[in-house]
């Protein structure tokens, strides 16, 4: 019986002209979004590779200079675009793409692509993700609002129930039929998505396929939850018009209001520190120690004394190496502790804000989906943090190699060591960023996935509870 009802609903849906037009519009938009995003990711990656290659040349050809000067000359590293940005650009436009690595300082990634974009960016972006997050739910509303309420209004519900059809079978059959109609629409789109990823060189970096599969699951949970909510409303509402009104209000609250309200709420709960306060506190800690009672000069003095004692010498000039190099190493180590503490705290704070938004997804499922989708696509804040940490690690390695060279080079001018050349520059490997494994993405996506699971489970339970009480009028 359920299958017969499902078959009838499936055919009905496809015979409905309005659904066919809306479905065509959504499909075309999804296709356009996917195609253009694919092109954009390709172009961005090519530009990024060219810039990285040129910067490497710059580094190698910087000529002969003191190794500490090379530390100040520094290196720029560029953030590669995650392959799954083809589906979900996520935060990419709003985080920096370029990090300047130099001696003494940990810099934040600079140059947000959105700063170079037009103001239209603020209306949101047309990606496959936004299509599935905002437009497909609208399509579901259109498909389902009259499914039960409409039959009730026309009086056919009474007739069907009088035939002895169990209300639960009727509701499940409708859910199955309408779900199938949607699946027929979306599966080819998903196929195109998979094809786009397969055509992207290095698309599997960071476990692209595993991530894509989980993304598919997240979207399936979201759309299933919405389908169940819509049917439940249609089952309860007295008229199709009332069902449509309720569903449209819910859609607008979820798609238009919730993202901004939740983001505001998180900011109010956990306000972002001001840049000037953050930098002042960090610079102070570099000078006075993390506890504020241990001035840098005192620590370096003590370090000098300890070094002399260790080598059994009384004067710095007697040491068998360039002491300035060792001091540089030690002061970098001290500063790094401060950077780890302050940046760690800031990033934890931003992640806590994001988690707050994700959990408000219990009220508006879009927020849970958005968070899971970005995490799986590799375009959320945790992935940006992963990149920032990798870039910082590269900075520390490169500054350490330079300082060690200085330590082992006799001080020509009695201060900063000798002159180094291409041989040393080549010792420093080019920056290579490996995106985190899918396990990282899954960990980051867990709260969002959990929210979606709760929504799907809750919505289907509600539908099954509502179904037996289906009123014929």
């Amino acid at each position, binding site marked *: 019986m359920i299958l017969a009802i499902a078959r009838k609903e499936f055919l009905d849906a496809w015979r409905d002209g309005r659904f066919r037009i*809306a479905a065509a519009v959504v499909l075309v*938009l999804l296709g356009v979004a996917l195609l*253009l995003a694919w*092109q*954009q990711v390709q172009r*961005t990656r090519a530009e*990024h590779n*060219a*810039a990285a290659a*040129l*910067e490497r040349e*710059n580094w190698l050809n910087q*000529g002969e200079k003191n190794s500490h000067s090379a530390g100040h000359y520094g290196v*720029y590293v*560029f953030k590669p675009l995650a392959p799954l940005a083809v589906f979900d650009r*996520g*935060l990419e436009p*709003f*985080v*920096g793409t*370029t990090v300047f690595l130099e001696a003494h300082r940990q*810099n*934040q990634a*600079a140059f*947000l*692509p*959105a*700063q*170079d*974009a*037009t*103001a*239209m960016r*603020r*209306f*949101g*972006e*047309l990606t496959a993700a*936004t299509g599935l997050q905002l*437009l497909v739910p*609208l399509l579901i509303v259109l498909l389902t609002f009259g499914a039960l309420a409409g039959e009730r209004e026309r009086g056919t519900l009474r007739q069907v129930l009088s035939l002895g059809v169990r209300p639960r079978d009727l509701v499940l059959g409708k859910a199955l039929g309408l779900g199938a109609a949607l699946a027929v629409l979306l599966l080819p789109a998903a196929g195109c998505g998979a094809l786009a990823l397969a055509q992207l060189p290095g698309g599997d970096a960071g476990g692209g396929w595993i991530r894509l599969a989980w993304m598919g699951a997240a979207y399936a949970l979201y759309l299933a939850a919405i389908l169940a909510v819509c049917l439940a409303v249609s089952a309860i509402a007295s008229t*199709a*018009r009332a069902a*449509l009104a309720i569903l449209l209000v819910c859609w607008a609250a979820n798609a238009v*209001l919730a*993202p*901004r*309200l939740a*983001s*505001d709420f*998180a*900011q109010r709960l956990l306000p*972002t520190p*001001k*840049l*000037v306060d*953050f930098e002042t506190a960090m610079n102070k800690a570099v000078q006075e120690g993390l506890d504020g009672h241990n001035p840098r000069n005192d620590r370096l003095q003590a370090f000098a004394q300890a070094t002399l004692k260790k080598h059994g010498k009384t004067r710095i000039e007697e040491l068998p190496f360039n002491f300035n190099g060792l001091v540089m190493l030690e002061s970098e180590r001290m500063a790094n502790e401060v950077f780890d503490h302050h940046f760690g705290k800031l990033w934890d704070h*931003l992640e806590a*804000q994001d988690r707050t938004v994700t959990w408000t997804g219990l009220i508006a499922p879009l927020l849970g989906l958005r968070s899971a989708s970005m995490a799986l696509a590799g375009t959320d*804040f945790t992935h940006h943090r992963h990149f920032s940490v990798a870039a910082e690690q590269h900075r520390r390695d490169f500054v350490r190699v330079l300082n060690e060279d200085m330590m082992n080079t006799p001080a020509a001018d009695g201060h900063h060591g000798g002159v180094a050349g291409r041989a040393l520059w080549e010792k420093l490997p080019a920056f290579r960023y490996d995106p985190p494994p899918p396990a990282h993405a899954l960990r980051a996506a867990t709260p969002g996935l959990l929210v979606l699971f709760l929504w799907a489970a809750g919505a289907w339970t509600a539908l099954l509870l509502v179904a037996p009480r289906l009123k014929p009028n």
Partner: protein
Amino acid sequence: MTSHLFRLELRLLARERAAWVLLGLFAAALAYGLWNGVRLAHRQSEAATALTQDAAQFQTQLREVLGKQSVDPKAIAGRGTTAVLPAAPLPLLATGQSDLSPSHETVVLWKLAAPADTRSELENPSHLMAGRFDLAFVLVWLFPLFLLALIYDLMAGDRESGTLRLALAQGIAPWGWMARRALARSLPMLTLAALATLTAGFFGGAGGAGPRLPLALTVVLTYGLFWVALALAANAIARTAAGAATALGAAWVLLVLVAPTLLNVTVETLYPTPSRPELVAAGRKASGDAEKRGGELLNSFYRDHPELAPPGQQADFAAQHLTVQSEVGRAVEPVRQKFDAQLARQQTAVGQWRFVSPAIAAHEALTDLAGTGYWRHRAFREQVGGLRQAVSAFFTPRIHKREPITSADLDKLPRFEFREEPAGTWMGRVLASLAGMLALAGVLGAWAWRSLRPARLGRLST
């Protein structure tokens, strides 16, 4: 008859509980948007005030010191000159680009050729992505939704239930009836939107709002008018109220959600955003090349400018750095200009295509009027470019000649004073947006009017 119908419709509206709920929700959204604007404007003006005070304090200290002795120009140059974008004329109206584009920058002589960090505040990227719940959001996104909820059924419902025949039998002209109905039902929403816009002007304006507030009011009301015209057009053809509602809902989704994002991807495809990494790497290449030829460059510089050669011809590190830097600036300039030109082309394309959706036109006009739009921030960036040149022009010869700064130089020190865009320029853009919206509303209204001519009455009422 005229005012009678109007009053009747208002009285009917006052009896609808749903209408009161919608009005209450809209008023709450407007108030929340305004409050959010106040908070952001406060945060931004706090930062600007602190920087301005800091700069003023330095001036005072410098004046004191120079009164007693002259100072090495390098010491002053190292501190830098801060450029601050003054508070926007109507900040409460729209956040615009103000949370994304930097509103202050410190120009330091030694770093003129280095790529500047473009951030002036810490923001959670997700917050930037979600966008702010400001007045512009309520007016551009939510206002049409609330408005349409009140006016989606102007005639279609009567046609559906058959009361239209009855009403028309009274000898009412269908167009006049529907237009009055639309006006009466939209009046409360339009009033609320106008009041909120005025509040934003009176409580948030930095004094010099001038013609901006009346223009903002006109933009908001014209935008509302467009949606009213759309509702009239939908009702002229829809056979059922649900049909009219669906058509209007679809129009909202297409015009407010889809069109801007579609325009965004189209513009990005036609005029791709130039690559920042490439610009950075090209600048570095130029600086590497110039640095290697540092000594040679300086010698040739002194050959060309013997008047700037220091006493005894002994070049110092600072002079060499400045020569290298100006060479880098020269080498990178074409790349940078290409980059900026491409960005301008992008935004110009958006400007030309903003008429595809009144939501885009209204948003562009509101951010322009608020003073938080693309073009004001672009003007700031360009003027900071001018400050860089002024800083270089002031300090470079003095450092080459090792000429100390004295109290006589105090008033010649480069300073930043933001020049607002000429009123004609921004007003031209706003008026064009307004004209575009009016034209769209006019076309829709005319079409609705044509469909409701008495000659078509027979077809109308069935």
